[in-house]
Each structure stands twice: as C-alpha cells, then as structure tokens.
C-alpha cells in the first residue's frame, strides 16, 4: 500500500455471527449475520481521513482509499496496491471446535436444556430467556509502514435471564459466560448451572430489602469487581483521554495514585478470556501492560496514533468495533492482582456495609473521575456477617479517591463475566477480574434512609 499521506492503512474484516434466542419457552429465532468490508485510514499530520466500504473489489477499495486520502487533505493521489491473496492468517486464536462446524440443532439444544433445568427446579421463576451466541471474525491489516498481518478471533457466549415473582413484585437474575474460544466452551461450562445461577439470583432477591443510602464500606466479591476498576481508573488511563487532559490521571505517571497493595494490569494475551486477541485492530500484538504497580501509576494504554506522537510503541490497545469504525485506545482484560487477605476475614472485619457479589454495568466521567456502577446481586453486612439481600441500584464514587480507599485485597482472584465496553459509540468485548476487596467508603444509592 502506498499513499500520499504520511500513513495509510487498510483494515479488512469478515465477521460471521450466529445467535439463538429462547424466550417464554419458545425458540424464538436463529439469526445469522455476515458483515464484511474494509476501513481505510490515511493520516496526514494530525488529520485522519477515514472511509469504509462493503465493496471489496479493487475499484471499491480504490474509491474508498481516494475518499480517505482526500479527507486527510493529503496532497498526492492515493495509490492502493494490496495483494492479500498470498497472505496466510496466522492460526492464533486457540480454537478446538469451530462453531460453524457445529449443527444449529446442537446450539438450540443448549437453550432448551437451560430453560428446562430452571422450569423443572420447582422455583418461583416465572420467565426464562436464554441466548447463545458465537462470532467468527477474520482480520487482515496492511499499512504503509510495511505491516501485513491478520488474526482470527472466535468468541462463544451463553447467557440466561430469569424473572422470579413473589408477594413484593418481580425480581430478575442474570448469569453469562463468554470466552474467546470455540464450541468447546460447552465442554467446560454446564449451561444448566448457568441457568440455575441466574434463577437463584432472581429468587434470592424476592426477599430483598431496599438498599441503604449513603457512604459505607463496600466489599466486592471475587470476579465481581472488575467493572469497578474498569470505571474508576481504566478509562482514565487511556492515552487518548490523557492527551486531551480529559482524565484525572493525566500527568500522574510515577505518582502514588492508589493504596500500596493495588496492582492493576491490562492484558490482551490472556488465553481464552473475553478481551483476548493475538493482534489488536491496528495489527499490533497483544501485550500485558502493568498500569498501576503497588499503588504507583506506571503507564497508560496506547494505540498507534497516540504512541507515535509520544515516540513510543503501541501497547496493543488500538481497537475498533468493526471496519466501519476508526480505532482508538481501549482496554482488553483488566484485572486487579490478588493480594494476601482472607476473604472471610474481610467480611468479618466489616461491622456494617454491603457485599456486592455481582456488579452490573457502569459509567465514568474521566475528566472528573466520578463513576457509577450497578449492583445486581448484593447483601447487607451486619456485625461482620452477610445479612439480607438488597434490591438493585447504583453505587457512586470518585475514581482517584476510591483507589486510595481500597483497604483490603484477598487472594481469591477470579475473572468476572464477559462485558461489552462502550466508548464514543463503539462496543468491544472486554474481560475483567478481581479478588475479594474492600473499599472503605463508597456511596450506596439505595432508598432506605
């Protein structure tokens, strides 16, 4: 590929996805989709021109390249000469059973099994919805720096949502699993157990009390706290936001930003995890990046463009939702390293507060550091013991303060549920994990005063 711009890149994506949904006892639909196309980026100085097309013929690509080049206000005419025919896609993702080689009836059977296991369990569950999904994403990336590479990313997922009904109304419970693997996911995962977990969550909440309101200690269970770090500081450590001073963590490299027992890592190389890939969507290899080490901010996350500006290498965090999107700095699998505390002692040591077993989504304003995250399974802690389940709600805190307020970390590390991280309208799959931990003070947004 050549171009009049100072940098040119072609990103070709071919994604096939399958989903199957069972709801209200019926297999409602099987959905197959195919999205295939190319995104062409031309960077001239600080200006990026971008065009995408679903037309992968030479003339279609040429037209898109011209559009991108003229958008970048590059002076000379773009010339695209890409020969991708002899390039072999490295067999990178570790796949045993390709989902496309599994019959649709086998996929549907998983849904029926999950549904029946809940309906046969004699629980006060009134509704079950189950979803199976797989995606097969093949990438080819070439750029004017001579890069020619590719990846094949296969993800499989399964989720169940239940509604339970009691005297005090309806409650919901959800459980999901998702890994960057093929259909072998279902050798290791029993979908009936996934379904029963979702059901138990809904049923438990039938006896829930309104969440308390105000500041108190919050203990987060193993695997449950990833969203907290994703929002409290993950986004704030993305170099594009740092560069625009739109993060409270700008200019804090080398400084103590968290309690001394906090080590936070973003790692796209974790085999099988939901945010796993061999190369990012700019062709750079996935990395393990230590963001905070023993409380000290060691590095931010970088994509090609931000790294180039700072004369360093990308950290493998340039990602995009599809060929229709420009890449930007994104997290992969973000986790808090295990500490040496005992999870039971952390709870016993908490006189009054809440214990969050499962977090929902979250949102952050990186410029102020204020963030919220939801709790979808949580309990009161009274006199060092788990007490009544509490109703759904949000917690709110300020990232830099929360990092300093972490006063206990246990050794029981676990990865959490698969997530989709949204930024600027683009969603990408991300993983997270934490051991049991305690924040000595967070604001719980309940209604009980």
């Amino acid at each position, binding site marked *: 590929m050549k171009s009049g711009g100072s940098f040119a890149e072609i990103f070709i994506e071919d994604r096939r996805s399958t989903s199957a949904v069972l709801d209200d006892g*019926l*297999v*409602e*639909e*099987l*959905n*197959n*989709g*195919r*999205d*295939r196309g190319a995104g062409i980026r031309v960077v001239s100085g*600080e*200006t*990026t*021109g*971008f*065009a*995408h*097309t*679903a*037309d992968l013929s030479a003339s279609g690509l040429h037209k898109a390249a011209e*559009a*991108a080049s003229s*958008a970048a206000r590059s002076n000379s005419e773009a010339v695209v000469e890409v020969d991708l025919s002899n390039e072999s896609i490295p067999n990178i993702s570790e796949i045993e059973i390709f989902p496309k080689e599994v019959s649709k009836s086998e996929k549907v059977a998983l849904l029926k099994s999950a549904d029946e296991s809940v309906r046969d369990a004699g629980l006060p569950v*009134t*509704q079950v919805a189950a979803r199976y999904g797989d995606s097969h994403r093949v990438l080819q990336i070439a750029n004017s720096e001579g890069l020619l590479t590719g990846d094949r990313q296969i993800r499989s997922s399964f989720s169940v949502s239940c*509604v339970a*009904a009691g005297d005090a*109304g309806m409650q*919901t419970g959800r459980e999901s699993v998702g890994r960057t693997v093929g259909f072998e996911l279902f050798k290791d995962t029993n979908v009936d157990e996934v379904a029963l977990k979702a059901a138990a969550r809904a049923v438990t909440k039938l006896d829930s009390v309104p969440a308390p*309101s*105000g*500041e108190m200690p919050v203990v987060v269970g193993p695997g449950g706290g990833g969203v907290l770090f994703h929002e409290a500081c993950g986004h704030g450590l993305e170099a594009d936001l740092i560069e*625009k*001073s*739109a993060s*409270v963590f700008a200019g804090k490299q080398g400084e103590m930003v968290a309690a001394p027992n906090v080590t936070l890592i973003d790692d796209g190389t974790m085999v099988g995890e939901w945010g796993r890939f061999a190369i990012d969507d700019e062709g750079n290899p996935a990395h393990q990046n230590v963001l905070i080490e023993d409380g000290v901010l060691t590095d931010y996350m970088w994509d090609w463009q931000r790294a180039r500006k700072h004369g360093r290498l990308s950290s493998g965090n340039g990602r995009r939702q599809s060929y*229709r999107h*420009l890449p930007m700095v994104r997290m992969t699998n973000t986790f808090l390293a295990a500490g040496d505390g005992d999870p039971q002692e952390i709870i016993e040591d908490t006189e009054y507060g809440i214990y969050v077993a499962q977090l*929902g*989504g979250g*949102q952050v*304003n990186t*410029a*102020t550091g*204020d*963030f*919220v*995250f*939801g709790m979808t399974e949580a309990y009161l802690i009274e006199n060092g013991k788990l007490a009544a389940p509490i*109703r*759904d*709600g*949000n917690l*709110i805190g300020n990232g830099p303060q929360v990092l300093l307020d972490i006063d206990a970390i246990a050794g029981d590390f676990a990865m959490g549920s698969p997530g989709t991280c949204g930024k600027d309208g683009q969603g990408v799959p991300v993983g997270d994990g934490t051991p049991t931990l305690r924040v000595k003070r967070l*604001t719980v*947004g*309940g*209604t009980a*005063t």
Partner: protein
Amino acid sequence: MSTELIEIAELVTSWSASDEQVEAVVTSDRETEVRAYEGEIESLTVAESQGIGVRVIKDGRQGFAYAGTLEENELLEVLSEARDNASFASPDEFSGLAEPDGVESVSLDVYSDGVNSLATNKKIDYALELEKLTLATDKRISGIESSEYTDVVSESAIATSTGIRSSSKESGCCLMVYALAEEKGETQTGFGFSIGRNPDELDVAKAASDASDRATRMLGSTKPKSERLTVVLDPWVSAQFLQIVGSTLSAEMVLKGRSLFADRLGETVASPIISLVDDPTNPQAFTATETDGEGLATRRNVLIENGELKMFLHNVWTARKAASTSTGSAIRSYASTPGVGIQAISLKPGGRDPIDLIADIDNGILIQSVTGLHSGVNPISGDFSTGAEGLRISNGELSEPLREFTIGSTIQKMLKDVSEVGSDLEWLPMSSAGSTVVINELTVSGA
C-alpha cells in the same frame, strides 16, 4: 436510491415459495463525521453502509438472517440462511408478517437535500467554528474534548410476500461538543448540541453556550448529604426517564411477564397530571417516521391519560398473541427481528413556567444530568438509582452545584409522586421529548 432499495426488497420477496412468508428490510446510510481538535481537523469520515435483513416464516416457525451488503449473490445466501434457521425455531401460532391494515401513513417532511448539497469544507467549518466558539464563551473553559459535525442520509425499504410495501428517506445533522472547564485545579465537563434535518437549522452558538454553561456551573460542586426531598428533573433528564417508563409499556414485556404494569390497564398508575403519548407522526420529533419496522403506518398512541393506563404498544406478533391490533410500534434495524418500543414519547405539558415551579420549592435539587441509567434501573422490578448532578434549590432559587450523589426510587412510586409538569417541551436527540418535572420525594444518597 429509495426506489432501488424497494426493488431489492421486492426481488427477495419474489423468491418466496407458496408455503412461506418472506420479509426483506433493506437499508442504506450515507454519513459524514468531522471532528475538530485544537483548530485542526482531527478526523474526517465519509462512509456508505448498506444492509439487508430477511425474515422467513413457515409453519409458524420464524428464521432470520442479515448481511451488511446488497450484492445479489449475498441476497440469495441471506434468504437461504433465514429459511434454514426457521426450521430450528419452535412453532408459534402467532408468528406472522404484517399485512396491509388500511391505516394510511402520514406524510412527513423528514428529508432535506441540504445535508447532501453542503460542501465538505462547510461541514469542516461547522466543527472548527463550534470548537472556537465554545472556547471563547468563558475564560474558565480550558479545553475541548471533542467538537464534531455529523450528518446522515438514511433510506430504507420493506417488502413482504403478504403485500407490505414501504420506503422512507430521511436526513439528519448534528453538532456535538464536550467542553472542559477548569478553576482552582478542579475540572468539570459539559456538553452542548444542536440537531436538525438540514444544516441551516444548526445553531452553533447555542451548542457552544450550552456546553460552556453545563461545564462551568459544576465548578465548585460538592456532595450533598443523604436525605429525602423534592427533586426537579430538567428536560434532558426527564426525557431519559420517559424512555424507561415507555419500555415498560411494551406489550412484549407484558405478554412475557416482564412488565410491572401488566394487568393494570384502566387503573391509575401515575399522578393525575400525567398524560403520556407516543407519537411518531409528530414532525417535531427527530425520530418521527411514517412507517414502523414492519412497514405499517405509525400512529399516535395515548399510553397514559390523566394518570390512567390506557394501552400497551404492539407490533404484529404481540397484537396477534393478545388478540389486538398492531399500534405501528415495531422497532428494529436490518440486523434484528422487530421488537416493540416507543418511537417519539412525550408528556403533555402543564400550565406553568419551570421558573415558577422552582420558586415554590424551599429545599430541593434540580437534576441536570444522570449517569448509569443502564446499570441502575431495573425496568422489571421497577427499582432505580442513578448517578446525578445538579443545583441546590433553596427558598425558591437555584444555588450551589452538587455532584457525586444518586437519586433513587421505584418507577411505580416516582410516577405517582410527580406533582408538576412544566409548560416547556423540548424534543431531544432520542426517542423522547423532555419537560421540567417536579417529583415530591426521591431519595438522595450522598455523604
């Protein structure tokens, strides 16, 4: 292009066999996005996207497939995938495509050629001018996180083997800016926008001053203490809550046992001052549309009148299952089967100016932004708590800024606790309009 899209949809449905129903939804979008940063173009994206979704129903079994291209060999593959998928679905006697129901669609003027005819340089100028103006509004504005101009021309067509034919073309453009304000080492952010069908409707100065106001008003903000008190939602916030309320009034939620308003038809579910209407035929709504996601005419649906629950929203499937008729409320993209949902929802405005409503309040909070709606609202149980920012109301006047707190209640209780709806009504870039709304009692969780 519209005629071409309907021709593609008709071509696919013409391949239907006599014992099956086939629906094809075809879309085409043309977009421009310009981002400015520090006086330069940060990025300029020009793009066209197409897509087709095909639904096949045979023996009550439904299958679906889609592709992000309109190449003819792909069309055949999509149809055959959808057919194959149908064979794995459970039979459902209520499955079926829309059929012409005799309801005439309104004629809406939602396309303007201005987006197409405006030169790229002028679009760039919008983004640059927006950044420049926002920076100049206030000396405390320390930077601009993003300043962008976007426009889109969307066309779509639906054809079915059951006789549905519809096509539409609409244009839209938007200015959006995120400003950073800084004072005494503290940073706050605020956004401003302007939206229209035609670029000449865009108001750069308003977008700039709104962003500046939103960012600077939060400087020096503190965390309130936890208490129950009167809360006023500004239009931006009330519009977001209306979307959640609207989602609970879908017949799909009702029929599948997920609506907290099931079995409540004819009952009082809200304060008597609440009348809630979903009206995608209203040209003032940016989401106004002549036909719904199944090709039926949209219509004005009164959901709640003077506090009384009047109806639920239906698509074809829910209407069949409930022995009712579609309310023209199917919503979807080419990559999904039709769901049911609101399209342009609003409250009937009250008689008093927002300022007068605030003047009545001795101690309260005006909520100007909420965060975490997706994680903090459970539309099935009705529980909600969201992050919030706003201004203290003391003795009838707006005073100091507040942040890092949540507001919480249940959807059921909040609807009954509404004591006033202002005379204002503002259509926003979402499927709802906002009005100033006073709620007698919400729980504020803070320090």
